[in-house]
Each structure stands twice: as C-alpha cells, then as structure tokens.
C-alpha cells in the first residue's frame, strides 16, 4: 500500500481565513460594536491653527438635556502623548494646528452631542503662524512649542566615509531638490474607539483599532495615570491600517476621560471629513541630494539634506529619517555618504507613519537622480544600477549585513520581462512635447524585511494548544489588519503539525489573552510572528513525537506529522492518528495537554548613536518598471503596465503576497499620480473623496509580478517581510518614465495633469 502524499502548504494559494465571514457582511468592525448604555463622544476641534486659548465656555453645552459630560483641558490630567510628549489630548493653553482638540462631549445620542458641540464658545488670540517648513528654521520664527525654541522636533545626522574625498574622485556630480507632498491613508473604515471604564474595579477595556496593542497599553497607562495591568485592549477587525494605527491619537484618551467622567461606555467614531482632517499623513519633504560617480559608473559619494514638515506635533512618524537613511546609505554601494535631516514644527496637520515610512520619499529622490547621473555619464541606467547594486554578503557603511540579497536578480528580472533597455531606447528616441508619448521608467528599493530593532525588543510571543481532537489554537501577539497575517501564521503551524487549515483557530485581538508583540510595522509580522509560531509548533511536535515514541517501536526522530497522523518519516506510512495520540496523552497516567509557548527575538541589533548596526534580521529588495502614456495636450499621465520583481525570501501564500504587492503598487500609483492634500494656511481644502482622489478600478494598470526567492536563512521557511515594499518604487519609476516620454524631468509630486502640463510648458510649478 502506498502511503498518501501530503503536499506542502508553503507557496500555495490559500484564501484568507476571515474572508468567508467578511463577504457575508458578518464581520463586526469598531463602527458595528455597541455596548449597553453607551454614550456617544464627539470632539470640538479648533478653527484656528496657531492661537492662544483665552477662554472656553461650556455652560450652554452642559445644560443641554442628554449631555452627560463636557470636558476641556481643565478637567483632565495633562499628560501629553507622542514620541516627543508634545501633544496633550485636550489643548489648554494654545492650539497649533487645525486638528487640535479643545473640548469633548459625551451624550445620549450623536445628534445631541453634535448640538452640544455647537454650543461651546471658545475665545482665541491668534499667534503668528508658520506654514512653510523653511520658515520654521529662520531666525526669529514664531515658536510653536516652548520646549523646542528652534522649532526642530527631531534631527538626525549620519555619515560614513569622507564625502569630500568622494567628491574629489568624481567625474560627474549632480545636485537636485525634490519636493514631496502630503497624502493620507484613507482606510476605508474610519477611526474609532470604545472606552469602557468600570468604576468599581477601576478596569479599563478599550475596543481599539490600534496596530500596536501592547505599546498602546503601556502609553495609555502613562497618559491616564493608570496601572497598566488594569488596561485591556480588544481589537475588533480593522478596516485598514497601513501605519495609521501606530500611534495613540488624542481621540483615544479623550474617550477614556469621557468614560471615566460619565461612568458609562463611550463610543467615539470619526466622520470621513474628520478622518481626513484629524488622522495622520505621510511626511511632506524637501530633499536636497548631491551625488557623484566616476566615468566607469562607480558611485563615489552622496550628501543628503532633508527638511520634513512635522506639522504641529510629533508622532512616531517623525522617526522616518531612520528608514530614509538606509536607502540613501545602503540601497547602492556608496563609499562616502553624509546625511542630515530635520523634522520641523509648522502649524500644518501633523504627519504620522505610513506604509513605506519615508522610503517613498527617499527612493523618489535617489532613483530619479540615478537616471540623471546615468544620462550624464552616457551609461544605460539599468547597467548603472546593476553596477552599483548591493550583493549578498555585503556589510554597508551603516552596518547592515545583507545575508541574502536578490537585488541584482530583481533588476535583471524586471528589466528582462519588460524589455526595459530596448524599450527605453526606442521610446527615448521618439520623446517629445506634442501628441501622446510613451515612456518606461525603472526604480528599485531596499527595505527592512526581518523586523527592525527600534524598541528594546523586536519580538513576538505565541501560545499554542491542541485539543483532544487535533484542533490547534494559536494565540499570537501579532495583529491582523487585513494583510493576512493570521492565515500565514496558521499555514506555518499547519506545515509543522501536519494538520489542515480547517483545524486551526488564530486568536490575535485581546491583550489579556495574547502574548506580547511589538506591533504591526516595519513589514515584520510574517517574519517575526511567523518564526515565533513555528517555534511554538515545533515544541508541540517534539512533545507529540516523544509521546508517540513511548507507544510505538520507533524513535521520535524517525516520525513526522502529516495529514492529521503521526507517520513514519521515511515513507509516510501511518503510525497512528494525531488525535488518538493527544487523547492518550491527556487521559493516561501522564495526564498532559499539549500546550506550548514561544517567544522569538530576531538576531538583529540596535543601532548605535551614529545609526550604525544591523537593525533587521533580513532585507527585502525590489525593482519595478512602469510604462506610461503622457498626453501632452492635457498633461494626463496614464499608467499602462507595471513589472514588479520582489525579493520576498520565499513565497508562503502566493495569493496573499500577490494581494500585498498589487495593493501596494496601486497605493504607489495614487501617491505618484493623483492623491494630494493641499493645505492652505493650515487648513486642508479637500477633506472628502470627491477631491482626494484614490485610484479606482478602471484606472489600474496591467501588473506583471515576479518573485525572487532568496530563501533567507533566518526567515520563516525562508520568507522575508514584504508589506511595505511594493508601494515604494512607483513614484520614482513614473517620474523616470515621464522623462523617457517627454524629456521633461519633474522633481515634485504628485504628477497631476496640471502639474505635468505646466512642467511640459516650462511654467513654474
């Protein structure tokens, strides 16, 4: 008799575990949850962007029937939030941007809360504002935060080598200034929270959209002056994250204050307009980049000066210079590099963290300049990139060690599949400023793919149990934010334990149940939580096979778990059903359940004060080539096709990873072509989808996706993180394609029809 063959789940197209419930409309997001007796919270935001608060009169609002609490800064403890601790949830002394929260109401209904908000009278005394980050650092500029009289929220300096020497060795030197705009996440599910404070026990349950529940818990305790062990965070399914839920925002502590004040659960949900006005944005940036190369195409040096518009307050997003720095110092081999970044306060809406975390901005600058330098050197840009691309085994000036590196493969694959070199040559020969022109452009990227050791630990815990029937429950610290992490974790565990996907439940949404994880960011979940889950599964497997060895005539190492059975490893011959073994263990004299725990900490290190150190356990690479059509009569740029080659380590779930890459490409398309948040004198002028244009279905390009499998030694089954990578190259590639089509290089985003048309006409932007 032939033993059954059990195909590996790795690399298969596995549907998301939560999809059947989602397509039936049964999934309950934060908006869909209601607690008995809950009140509705609402925030009054300032209408001024930089002003002293003279007085707040809440008496009329408090007198309105159905109003249960009206709070201002005077009613709550002042514990500012944010990475610089500069953002008090309710503003008492002054307001610094359009979003600022000056009062909050809890009422029996949303309608009453809306009426109450209108009754609050605030008197302001305007202060001189700053809207352009270049003005923030001028002498005598108004001071936005007294604690930072120079208006610099954060500054970063990094160097390796000797750029003066590099410049002396250069045959070609180019310098450019790039200007990057403000965009936002546009999660389809708007922000919201429900705070349930139990007055007798003092326990707080927060139903929150956070993607970092354990860090949240700690920061909440600080902000609220509570014992962290009294805080439980439950995460309902999230209607999109993309980095937007990496910080605590003022509305969350405000909901808790309201719940404390009223002794009732308080639900606070944004409107879409509020979501646009009061949720984080990507950092607007001004990047001055100077680079050199020798005649043979070897890069010599790079100096970088970046000015980031931090807005009124400082979120975690202000640390994007960490990531930008990696791209400038290490995407290509650059012997000499100097990098300086300032994130400065303005009275604009404050930026936060967003998928790609500074890398879209850095890549836009570098990859345009690579084309420009190649042209100056008379070298084909693809060859120029290939010559300077990193290889496996390199340790960069920043100390990043590329144990696996698929960069050259990515370049060759994307260029080969798109016919890039020939196409670029042919289209470039026909470039012009009339009619409809076509062009191709290329860009590449480097991003962390094995976590990023920023916090004291970059780890993730797993608790795993099997029941008497072989059903596996995985309790993981890693949050599911739509990216498919629970499905991948289940797959990795199934692979170890030889059980089908249907035999797995993943619990990932309750800090009282799940073990610690640093959070969903840095494309780390598959890598870190995956390794953690595999470790827990292997411990369970060891236990099961050790038990099996006592009841069979085989040694543990001669057996394996496949197809729900304990089998002989050599030929797959069934030894006994897994469930039977589990029951024997449970109901024997040993009386044991199979329950294991594992905490995985990646073998990465913290950077030193000079930002040097191998911060991630693996690094991801990609090259994307785009083909565009430019209508020179209108400036409309149409994206026709994208060829994307990604070093993903190994494909775990082919459908899941395609979904991440396709979604990322389209997000990058929006960043390049149409998304924009014009802010005029501190006020967002388009807080609606009507004029904040997301890409729609008819606009998507053809996508040709290739996976480069470098089988990372530390990755789970060889995989690397890929969540952020696909959106990073698009804007740079499109810029290069527009140049190929028209001969005009545009150094500022987005490439809206009017901007492109103006550039083609040589009109100042």
């Amino acid at each position, binding site marked *: 008799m032939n033993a059954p063959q059990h195909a590996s789940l790795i690399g298969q197209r596995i549907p998301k575990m939560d999809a059947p419930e989602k397509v039936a409309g049964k999934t309950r997001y934060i908006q869909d949850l209601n607690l008995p007796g809950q009140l509705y919270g609402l925030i009054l935001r300032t209408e001024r962007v930089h002003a002293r608060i003279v007085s707040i009169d809440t008496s009329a609002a408090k007198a309105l029937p159905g109003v249960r609490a009206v709070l201002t800064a005077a009613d709550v403890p002042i514990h500012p939030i944010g990475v610089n601790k500069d953002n008090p949830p309710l503003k008492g002394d002054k307001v610094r941007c359009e979003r600022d929260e000056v009062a909050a109401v809890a009422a029996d209904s949303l309608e009453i809360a809306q009426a109450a908000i209108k009754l609050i009278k605030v008197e302001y005394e305007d202060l001189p504002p700053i809207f352009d980050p270049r003005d923030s650092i001028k002498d005598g500029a108004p001071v936005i935060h007294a604690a930072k009289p120079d208006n610099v929220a954060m500054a970063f300096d990094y160097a390796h080598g000797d750029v003066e020497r590099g410049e002396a060795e250069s045959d070609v030197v180019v310098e450019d200034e790039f200007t990057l705009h403000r965009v936002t996440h546009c999660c389809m599910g708007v922000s919201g929270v429900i705070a349930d404070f139990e007055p007798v026990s003092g326990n707080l349950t927060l139903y929150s959209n956070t993607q970092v529940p354990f860090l949240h818990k700690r920061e909440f305790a600080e902000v609220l002056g509570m014992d962290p062990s009294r805080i439980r965070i439950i995460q309902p399914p999230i209607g999109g994250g993309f980095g937007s839920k990496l910080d605590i925002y003022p509305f969350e502590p405000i909901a808790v204050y309201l719940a404390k004040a009223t002794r009732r659960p308080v639900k606070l949900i944004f409107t879409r307009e509020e979501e646009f006005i009061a949720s984080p944005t990507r950092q607007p940036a001004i990047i001055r980049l100077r680079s050199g190369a020798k005649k043979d195409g070897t890069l010599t040096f790079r100096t970088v000066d970046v000015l980031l518009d931090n807005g009124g307050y400082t979120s975690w997003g202000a640390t994007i210079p960490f990531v930008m720095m990696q791209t400038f110092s290490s995407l290509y081999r650059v012997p000499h590099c100097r990098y300086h970044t300032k994130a400065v306060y303005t009275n604009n809406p404050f930026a936060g963290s967003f998928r790609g975390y500074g890398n879209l901005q850095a890549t836009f600058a570098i990859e345009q300049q690579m084309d420009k330098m190649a042209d100056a050197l008379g070298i084909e840009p693809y060859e120029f990139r290939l010559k300077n691309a990193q290889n496996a085994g390199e340790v960069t000036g920043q100390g990043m060690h590329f144990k696996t590196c698929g960069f050259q493969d990515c370049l060759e694959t994307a260029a080969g599949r798109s016919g890039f070199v020939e196409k670029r040559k042919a289209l470039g020969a026909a470039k012009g400023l009339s009619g409809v022109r076509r062009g191709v452009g290329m860009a590449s990227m480097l991003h962390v793919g094995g976590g990023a050791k920023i916090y004291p630990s970059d780890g993730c815990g797993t608790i795993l149990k099997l029941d008497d029937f072989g059903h596996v429950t995985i309790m993981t610290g890693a949050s599911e934010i739509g990216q498919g992490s629970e499905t991948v974790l289940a797959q990795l565990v199934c692979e170890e334990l030889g059980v089908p996907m249907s035999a797995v439940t993943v619990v990932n949404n309750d800090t009282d149940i799940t073990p610690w994880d640093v959070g969903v960011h840095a494309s780390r979940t598959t890598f870190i939580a995956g390794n953690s889950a595999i470790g827990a599964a292997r411990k369970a497997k060891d236990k099961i096979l050790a038990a099996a060895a006592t009841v069979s005539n085989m040694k543990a190492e001669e057996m394996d778990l496949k197809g729900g059975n304990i089998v002989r490893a050599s030929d797959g011959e069934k030894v006994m059903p897994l469930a039977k073994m589990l029951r024997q263990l449970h109901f024997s004299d040993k009386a044991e359940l199979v329950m294991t725990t594992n905490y995985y900490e990646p073998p990465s290190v913290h950077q030193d004060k000079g930002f040097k150190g191998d911060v991630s356990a693996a690094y991801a690479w990609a090259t994307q080539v785009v083909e565009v059509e430019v209508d020179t*009569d*209108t400036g*409309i740029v*149409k994206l026709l096709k994208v060829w994307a080659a990604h070093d993903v380590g190994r494909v775990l779930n082919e459908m899941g990873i395609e979904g991440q890459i396709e979604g990322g490409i389209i997000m990058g398309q929006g960043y390049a*072509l*149409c998304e924009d948040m*014009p802010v005029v004198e501190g006020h967002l*002028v*388009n807080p609606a989808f*009507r*004029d904040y*244009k997301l890409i*729609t279905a*008819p*606009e998507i390009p053809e996508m040709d996706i290739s996976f480069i499998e470098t089988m990372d030694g530390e990755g789970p089954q060889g995989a690397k993180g890929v969540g952020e990578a696909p959106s990073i190259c698009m804007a740079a590639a499109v810029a290069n394609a527009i140049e190929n089509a028209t001969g005009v290089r545009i150094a500022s985003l987005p490439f809206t*029809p*009017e901007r492109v*048309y*103006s550039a083609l*006409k040589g*009109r100042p932007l």
Partner: protein
Amino acid sequence: MTAIERYLAPAGLDDALAALAGGNATILAGGTDLMPQINAGKVAFRPILLNIRRIPELRAVEVGQGRISIGALVTINELKDNPVIAKAVPLLAEAADHFASDQVRNMGTIGGNVANASPAGDTLVPLLVLDAEVELASATGRRSVPMAEFFTGPGRSVRRPDELITALSLPLPRLRTVSRFVKFGTRPALDISAVSIGFSATLDGGRLSDVRVAFGAVGPVPMRGRATEAVLEGAALDAAIIAKAAATAQGEVKPIDDLRASAWYRRELIHNLLGKVLSDVVSR
C-alpha cells in the same frame, strides 16, 4: 438642522404642484445631491419634504413632432441605456456614461442635475448644445425656458420655488448633425469635471451650420460659446479655422482658480480639447 414638518410623496403631478404652491417645500428626486448638501449644511430643509419619485408621468420618454421629451425623473443610467434616447440624442447617452458612479447614475435624475445648476453638471453641457428647453410646471401654469437662459449662477436658476422641472424637451437632431462631448478627467467617471466641452453642428458639403458650442466648469454657469460658434458658423473646417476657434474659445471662457484647476490651465484645456474635438470631426 431644520425639522421637516411634513413628508409628502404624491402619486400625481397636481398634488405635487399644490404642495409646492407655497414655495416652502424641499423637492426630493434622486437625493444624490440633496443628502450631501443637507449633511454639509449647505442646504436646509424647508417645512415640507416633497418626494416626487412616485409620479409616473415624470418618468416618461416621448418622441413626437420633431422633439424628444425626457421626464425629469429619468435617471442618468436610463439616459445611458434607454434605446429611444440613445437613438434620438446619442450625445446625451454618451455624456451620461461619464457621470459619477453606477450607483449614483441609478439614483440621480436628469431633472435633478438641471435643478442643481452646478457649473460642472455633467448633463448640462450636452443639453445646451442640443438646444434643450426646461419644462417647468406650477399650480398656476406651465412654461418652457431655453437651457441657455435657465441658469443664473452657481446653484441658481430661473426656476421659482413653486415650480417643478417636469421634463427636458429637445429638438431631434437634423440629418448630418455631428455632435461631440468631451469631459476632461483622468478616469472614465467619478470625477468632477475641471472642464467639459459640447459641440453640435450640421455638416453639409464640408461646411458647418447651426453650430452650437458649450463649456462646463469654466464660469459661474455652463455657458454657450457664442464667439466660438460665430467663428465656426458657415466655415469649412480646416486647420486655420480650428486654430482660430480654439483660440477664440480660450479667450471667451471665464474660468476661476479653484482646488480642481487653475484658470490658466482650464483655458489651456479648452483650447487643446476643442482643437481635438474639431479635428476629430474632420477626420470622420
């Protein structure tokens, strides 16, 4: 928000006109403009909310005596899909395809689009070049107003508060009529027009007559391009005339700078897109 005192959904036109007589009713048709305007505080409810969707005669599409009458409640998707409309006035069906989204096209009505009088209303430019008349009814009588005289400003028209738009009436295009509609945008629909252009003329023996040109989103109201029409009327379409017409159009539109486009860019678009439209007419 003002409270609605009465909600009425009459099945007959006379009842609706009676309810409107005092001029204190908010008219509800498709609702696609009304609901967001109410939510944004741009419009306040009047004491009566008058739902006209249950009046069958406002849905009629009739052809007779050289004209087509399209009931005010005909939805944008019906404009797109109704074979009678597609045959009689294909330009209108084509314009409907660029309108918002499928869901909005299923709800929004032609009467509502005219009543809202947005300078960027997607059906207005084709209705202008098709020489449509707005049929108005009130408890005291009926009247027809040519589209070119209907709009008085953004969101404003000559319709009195006691009047209801019952239909749009259009002359059937003559033989050898050529017509075009162009809406500038980066995607097929779901886009508020930064500019749009309508063109209609009789092309006989290489010469244009009965020329009508209209522009959307380049002034306070959708406008007829009278100077451009004068350049084209009686002319043979050659490169010089096309260039002259495009330049004339660029000069006669009165766009403003707003979030969606600068005035300069709108003028450039009018110039370039009208040139494209006319070149396309020549090439067919």
